[in-house]
């Protein structure tokens, strides 16, 4: 298993109650797998309009494979400007 630290901001931080949390996934797991794990660990994410996952400071596609050391961040719907 690979350990991943997931960072949170804004509404995601309120749901998790912390600036980050740890989870482990099998080698070869994708962004899509991480998404399922997040919803399993924190069902309240299902109540957001939507959320994206950023990998190494860019929006990640569902099929991208996670690598140890990736910077992974939950991106709730943005509202800058």
């Amino acid at each position, binding site marked *: 298993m690979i350990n991943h630290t997931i960072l949170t901001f804004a*509404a995601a*931080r*309120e749901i998790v109650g912390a600036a980050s949390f740890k989870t482990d996934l099998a080698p070869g797991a994708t962004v899509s797998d991480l998404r399922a794990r997040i919803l399993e660990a924190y069902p309240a994410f299902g*109540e957001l309009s939507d959320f994206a996952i950023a990998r190494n400071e860019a929006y990640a596609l569902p099929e991208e494979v996670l690598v140890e050391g990736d910077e992974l961040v939950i991106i709730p719907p943005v509202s*800058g*400007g």
Partner: protein
Amino acid sequence: MIDVQISDQPLSIDTCYNTVQDPSCGGICLFVGTIRNHNQGEDVSRLEFDSYDGMALKEMRKIGEEVLELYDLKSVVLHHRKGALDIGDVAVIIAVSSVHRKAAFAGCEWVIDRLKERVPIWKKEFRGDGSFWINARP
């Protein structure tokens, strides 16, 4: 030229103007987004911005690169505030310069539209009916 910044200090319109100003350009368009005292029928008292700075700056720079490709512009500046803001405070400034004004208007509007779509910055409004991260809930 592209200049992007996220700051916890007040933004300056003059700084943005001076950065895009160029003797070859006749038209500069600026958009200034400020904190309104109302939203969705509720009074807003204050506001907080959270920002994923590293990625937000990268996305802002990408938007800058794209707008220079799409429109006939010389320079683009995007400055965004973070932290606690009061009504009337400036949340964002976009400034673009161009030889011709039509491109300046179109490019400036394109930048603020994209910023609101994809830059990871989040606004929490404190209003009469509670405090809310805008766009988070259906």
